[in-house]
C-alpha cells in the first residue's frame, strides 16, 4: 500500500478509527480469555487447597527443566515478535517477516518440547490420571494426584490449543508482510496479533508455577 493513504472499511470514519476499534476488540476478547482461564485457575487452586498432599506428590513428578526451558522459549518468542512490530512501525516488512518466522520457530519448539517430549514421557510414567495404571494408584495421595493430573492435562492442552491458534495468526502476519502490506500508517493487524501472542505467554506464566513450582519442595 502507499505510504500516504491507509484504506478503511466503510463502517469507520477513518483508518485511525478502524485501528483503535480493532485494538479495543482484541482487548475485550482477551478479557473473555481471562475469565475462561480464570475459571480453570480458580477450580485448580480450590481443588489444591482441598488435596494438598496429593497435589504436591503430583507436582514432584513433573519435568521442571522442560517447563523452565519452555518458559524461556515462549518469552523469547514474544520478544522477537515485538521486535518485528517495531520493524513494522518503520515500514520494514522484510525484518517483520523474519521476526515472525523466528517467533513461529520458537512456538513450534515449545510445542515439540511440551507435547512431543513431556507429554509422551508423562504417559510412559503412567501419569495419565484415568484408569488403574495410574502411578499413584493405591497410595493415600492417589485422589489428589489424579486431580492434579486432570488439571495438568486440561491446562496444558488448552494452552497448547491457544498456541496453535497464535502460530497460525503469526504465520498470516508473515504472509502479509511478505506481500509488503504493512507501512508506518498501517500496522494494526501486527499489533492485534501481538497482543494475543503475548497473552498466551501470560497464561503460561500462571500455569508454570501452578504445575512445576508450587508444592515441589
Amino acid at each position, binding site marked *: 500500500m502507499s505510504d500516504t493513504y491507509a484504506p478503511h472499511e466503510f463502517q*469507520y470514519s477513518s483508518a485511525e478509527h478502524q485501528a483503535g*476499534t480493532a485494538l479495543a476488540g482484541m482487548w475485550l476478547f482477551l*478479557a473473555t480469555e481471562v475469565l475462561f482461564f480464570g475459571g480453570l485457575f*480458580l477450580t485448580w487452586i*480450590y*481443588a489444591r487447597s482441598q488435596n494438598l498432599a496429593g497435589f504436591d506428590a503430583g507436582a514432584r513428578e513433573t519435568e521442571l527443566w522442560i517447563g523452565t526451558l519452555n518458559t524461556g522459549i515462549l518469552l523469547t518468542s514474544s520478544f522477537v515478535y515485538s521486535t518485528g512490530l517495531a520493524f513494522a512501525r518503520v515500514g520494514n516488512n522484510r525484518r517483520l517477516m523474519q521476526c515472525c518466522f523466528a517467533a513461529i520457530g520458537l512456538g513450534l519448539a515449545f510445542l515439540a518440547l511440551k507435547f512431543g517430549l513431556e507429554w509422551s514421557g508423562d504417559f510412559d510414567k503412567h501419569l495419565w490420571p*484415568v484408569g488403574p495404571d495410574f502411578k499413584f494408584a493405591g497410595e493415600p495421595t492417589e485422589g489428589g494426584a489424579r*486431580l492434579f493430573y486432570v488439571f495438568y492435562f486440561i491446562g496444558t492442552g488448552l494452552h497448547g490449543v491457544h498456541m496453535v491458534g497464535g502460530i497460525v495468526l503469526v504465520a498470516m502476519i508473515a504472509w502479509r508482510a511478505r506481500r509488503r502490506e504493512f507501512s508506518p500508517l498501517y500496522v494494526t493487524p501486527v499489533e492485534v496479533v501481538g497482543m494475543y501472542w503475548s497473552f498466551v505467554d501470560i497464561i503460561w506464566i500462571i500455569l508454570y508455577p501452578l504445575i512445576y513450582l508450587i508444592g515441589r519442595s
Partner: protein
Amino acid sequence: MSTTVVEAAELEKSYLVDKSTVASWLLTTDHKRIAILYLGSITFFFFIGGIAAAAVRLNLLVPEGLIPSAETYNRLFTTHGVIMVWFFLVPAVPVSLGNFVVPLMLGARDLAFPKLNLISWYLFIIGGIIELYALFIGGVDTGWTFYPPMSTSFNQSHVVLAVIGVFVSGFSSIATGLNFIVTIHRLRAPGMTWYKMPIFLWSLYSTSVILVLATPVLAITLLLLGFERIFRIGVFDPAIGGDPILFQHMFWFYSHPAVYIMILPGFGVISEIIPVFCRRRLFGYKFVAWCSVSIAVISFFVWGHHMFVSGQSLYASVVFSLLSYAVAVPSAIKVFNWIGTMHKGFIRFDAPMLYALGFVGLFTIGGLTGLFVAALAADVHLTQTYFVVAHFHYVMVGGMVTAFFGGLHYWWPKITGRMYPEMWGRAAALIIFIGFNVTFAPQFLLGYLGMPRRYHSYPPDFQVLNVLSSAGATILAAGYLLPLGYLTWSLFRGERAPANPWGATGLEWQTPSPPPAKNFATTPVVTEPPYTFPPPELVQNRV
C-alpha cells in the same frame, strides 16, 4: 407501470433486494441480513422448545402422567430447558432485534466487526445442529443445569453432545456481546453522546458485558464437565477429592447473570415502546440507563441464592440473600419509571403497547415472587417446587418473550417494510396474556402447596390446578402461533410501511423502511436527546 419503475429507481435499493442470491444471504456481513438469519433460527428453536413444553403439559394432565416412561418425561423437560435457555432466551432479542437496530440507532453503517457477526451466526447454527442431533438420538435427562454427579456418573443419556452444543453456541454469544460493546463505544454518530443514546442501547450494552464476562466461565465449566463425563474422572468427582458443589458455584456464576442476559434486553425494548405510544419523554432517563448497568454489575454477586439448600455456609447464604434483594431495587425503579412515563400520557393501544403493558404487569409479579425465593426461610419451603417454575416463567416468558414480541411488532415495519395487521396483532397480544396467566398462575399455588418440579407424576389432589395450567398452555400456544401466521402473511400482503409509522424519535426511523444496504444516505448528526416528544396537550390538540 412506468410510475412504479420511477419510484423504485428513486429510492436507494433496500437491504432486502440489494442482492438476491442464496450466497448473498448466507455469506452476508450486513447486520440487517444477519439479524434476519438469526430471527429465523431462534423462531425455529422457539417452536422446538415449545413442542417439548406442550408434551410436558400434556403429561401432567393426569396424576399418573400420560407419557408412560418417567425417563422420557425427564428428557422432554430437559429438551425444553436447554433449547429455550440457550437457543432462544439468551440470544433472542440481542441477536435479532439488537443486531438489526443497534447500528441504526447509533447512526452507524454496520457493527464494528461485521465478519465476526456472521461467524457468530454460524457458531450458533453449528451449536444448534449438535444440540438437535443430541436430542434426536435420544436426548438428555439431567435437566438444563447438568448437575454432577447425575450428569457425569449416573446417567446414560447424551450429556457430552448436549454440552458441546451449548459450549459452541456460547462462543456465538461472546462474539455478539463483544461486537455490541465495541460498536457502542466506537461507532456512535457525531453528536451521539452516551446520554443521547436510546435506552435499548444501554440495555444491550449491559447485557453484552454479562455475555462477555460470564459466558467464558460457563465454557470452562462445561469443558471440565465434559472431561469428567468422558473419562469418568475429574474435578467434580468426590470419590477422588473433587467437589460437585463447585460445579454449582461455577454454573450459577454464569447462569444467574444469564437470567439478566435474558431480561435486560426486554427492559430495553419496553423502554423504547412506552414513550412512543404515550407520546411522553421517558421518565427518569438516567435512572433507567444506570439501573441497567447496576443490574448487570449486581447480577455477578447473587449466584449463591440458587444454592440455599446445597449445604453452603449459612453466612454466605445470608449475604447472597441480601444481595438478591439489592438487585430488586434497580428493577423496581424501572417499573416505576415506565409507569411514570405513562402517567398523563396520550396512550395508544397498538399491539406493541399492549405487549409492553402485559410485560410491566407480568414482570412485576415475576419480580416480586423472586423476593419470596430470595428469602432464606421461605426458600427452604419453596425451592424445587412449582413456585420456582412459575416465578421464572413469569420473568422469562411473561417478561422476556412478551418483550420480544412487543419489539418484533414495533420494529416489524422497519425490518420488513410492511405493516402487520393491527387487529390481529392486538388479538394475539391479548390471547398470549390470558393464556400465559392461566398457564402459570396455578403453578404458584401448586408450588406453595408442595408440588415438586421435574416429577413425572403427582398426587391426585393437584389435578384440578394442573388441568387448568395445561388448558392455559393450549391458549398460549394458539397465541404464539397467531403471529407466525399473520406476520408471514404481512411479508407478502401487508400494507407498505412508511419510514416512521409510529412517529418515533430514534435514528432508525429516519431512514427508509426497509433501510438501504448501507443504512443511511448521509451520516446522521445527533443534536436532540432521545424521546423528545411534544407534550401530550399538543398532541391532543392536533387530534
